């Protein structure tokens, strides 16, 4: 794994999200009310809604377009909807956000 520092936890609003552009597409970073941070694809498998614009509640996010709800830990859609979004390894160290560069397709910095 190659951990890349992409910013501070505080850069993401509580119960909110921010985007990171990566070679594998847009990755959304979600910060829950309990201060956990999760990384997952920003693209809803339903019709491509931007999940980083959804409402974050508990450990889930609701897509802003048609209200599919995704579990942020597993990436799976909840309830009757079927589908899932890729999730990515993320670490928090001293308030900094570290994402696994390999998982998001970025070759390790030389």
């Amino acid at each position: 794994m190659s951990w890349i520092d992409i910013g501070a936890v505080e850069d993401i609003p509580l119960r909110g999200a921010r985007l990171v552009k990566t070679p594998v597409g847009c990755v959304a970073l979600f910060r829950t009310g309990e201060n956990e941070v999760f990384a997952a694809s920003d693209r809803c498998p339903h019709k491509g809604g931007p999940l980083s614009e959804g409402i974050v509640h508990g450990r889930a996010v609701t897509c802003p377009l048609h209200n599919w709800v995704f579990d942020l830990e597993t990436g799976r859609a909840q309830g009757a909807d079927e589908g899932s979004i890729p999730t990515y390894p993320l670490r928090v160290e001293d308030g900094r956000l570290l994402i696994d560069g390999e998982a998001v397709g970025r070759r390790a910095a030389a």
Partner: protein
Amino acid sequence: MTKKLVVIGAGMASGRMLEHLFEDAPGNWDVTLFNAEPRGNYNRLMLSPVLSGEKTFAEIVTHDADWYDAHGVTCRFGERVVEIDRAAKVVVGEKGEVAYDKLVVATGSDPFMIPLPGHDLDGVIPYRDLEDTERMMRLSETPGARAVVIGGGLLGLEAAAGMAARGVDVTVVHLMGHLMERQLDEAAGYLLRRALVEKGITVRCAANSKQILGENGHVKALLLDDGTELPCDLLVMAVGIRPSVALAKSAGLAVGRGVHVDDQMVTSDPDVLALGECVEHDGAVFGLVAPLYDQAKVLAETLMGRAAAFRPKEVATKLKVTGCDLFSAGDFAEGEGREDIVFRDPARGVYKRLVLEGPRLVGAVMYGDTADGAWFHGLIKDREDVSEMRETLIFGPAFQGGAQADPMAAVAALPADAEICGCNGVCKGRIVEAVEGGAATIEDVRAVTKASGSCGTCTGLVEQVMALSLGDDFVMPTAKPVCGCTDLTHEDVRRLIKAQELKSQPAVWQELGWSTPNGCHVCRPAVNYYLLADWPLEYQDDPQSRFVNERNHANIQKDGTYSVVPRMWGGLTNARELRAIADAADKYGVPTVKVTGGQRIDLLGVRKEDLPAMWADLNRAGLVSGHAYSKGLRTVKTCVGREHCRFGTQDSTGLGVRLEKRLWGAWTPHKVKLGVSGCPRNCAEATCKDLGIVCVDSGFEIGVGGAAGMDLKEIQPLVKVATEGEAEEWSVAFVQLYREHAKYLDRPYKWIAKVGMDWVREALSDPAERAALVARFDLSQTIYQKDPWAERAEPAQARRFQPLADLTLEAAE
């Protein structure tokens, strides 16, 4: 043969270690004990009860002169060790050297002082030792003394509560959104805050300190970065501790965040051991005594040449403030694959939350009833499989039988004087009396008390009160709850927010017994709206509880781009504005420009990143957000009216502009559109708007509840007035009535269908009530009538619209 043992620091850890040593190997060691504080070992934890006056210092001394005598300890209290010479195996104190065979470093930790300007003023103190405690105690001797505590963690709150108990006027300033955020979640933090406020302590969360102001070298006030000044005579900083490692470091011992020790508590030098808050073991540092006592045992064993190993275990936290019963253990924040179990009892002010990972309990937070804390702590420590008792786990060990959370708890908890029916001012006690007097149906209650007899939105609550009083004799009609997080309906929630004066989201979750930690995408936007509509001054709008369009102040399109619609007051524009719109369309490559049905221009296909800059450009030309995305005032459509049209009876355009300028920016349960036509030919299509005005020779006919969407509705007449001023007053009053009463996402016509047009007419016909509604509307506008574009075009806000990072670019380094 006795060996020479030197101990640096007479704290909680070293005191316990010496007890073990003297008990198991009396006479083997010749001990010299240094302490920088001018006294021996005492129970540091108990400084808080000393501060609050519940104990005296003498009661918390753990080892007195007789004890040191009996064990032949040479006490060098009030003397700081300044150097360790490991080569010569000598410790250098301020008053002389002592040789050692074995050395124990137990220097504890140093309070961290934020280097704010003014932090070195007299009267700025930490909270660590007896001197600090006495300083706080002395403060209370000055009548009217004021103190500020920076830091809403365990120490800060104990300091605040202690001083408050002695009559000092205390304000706690906390950087994070809720108190004790490391040990508590938001819900428990809310209950704790409520309890402290009841003790007369002022609590300011999410407050950033900027500077400490002084006068003649003494602290005078704390200045926050929002410009607030908090005057104080003493400022206590309790923002954290750092292991005290300077001495060990200069002696060349391996030091990271703390002094490195192995499982036997030995440092990088085999003759030097260490324990307490000054050490780092396996990457961890310590701040509570429980693990330090384990270290004390292991260190004593190591000195005696026995095998022992320190193993860290889960610690639990309790706050030592009388009346604040909280408990937190394990890890309820970070991690993967977790589930919550939440229990709230609004009547007793109880909140419990368990965090499960697979079949195991990994964390517990409790407030109000912590009796089961130890049991849960045990389950966490022992990593026990709890899947068998999962359903009833939250009820504790005594209750492995299967209790149900009570859906009516919130109503049961209401005091007798809580207002249930807002229209007729009927409180809970009155309804209970009616039931006791024989009323058995909702109609009976209505006849006797008038409760729920007017707008009817409180019917659900009245029924719940009846059900509680009548027990099984009353069959509750099933009403549709807001969502899966609660059993209450929207109407119930709205009434209870008013009746119980709930002014924050955590207050709603707790007092109304929500079953999730912070709601869901269905209830949270609704509750956010209800709170901001009812408490414009006290509640702060929460962007994270809004749907995307309102959060970004632009309409998201199906391809993820946004549309931008500047306001055109009453549909009027001019060449300068049009030019600015054309320029923006060019500059940001807007693919589609469309004229809307609301008489303005829509720029479609704008990228999120471009929004702030585009808004700033439009702002410069005097254009503001048209709120085309919001549950709020959209447009006021007008016709040209008397000024240009031969049929015009009044200045319909002018009235439209006037209404739009008055109403813009207000949040409403759903979108609101107005129309003003200059004569009954109705060119502005006013009769299918939420509020439509048709001008006639003798004045203005106002109607409400029109719609031209999925449902097509014609407005129903509300009133006819003679002057423009009256037309404006009625319009504003109607919008406010709708804001205060309607269910979230009900357009006015739906709401009117529920409460009845007669009720609306009656409510608005009273001039005093109308004036009061207008006054409440205007008060809310002082907060909310702000151009969101201007706010969000500012650099700090604008950053939120950019990606946090772009990893598609090649690394620059």
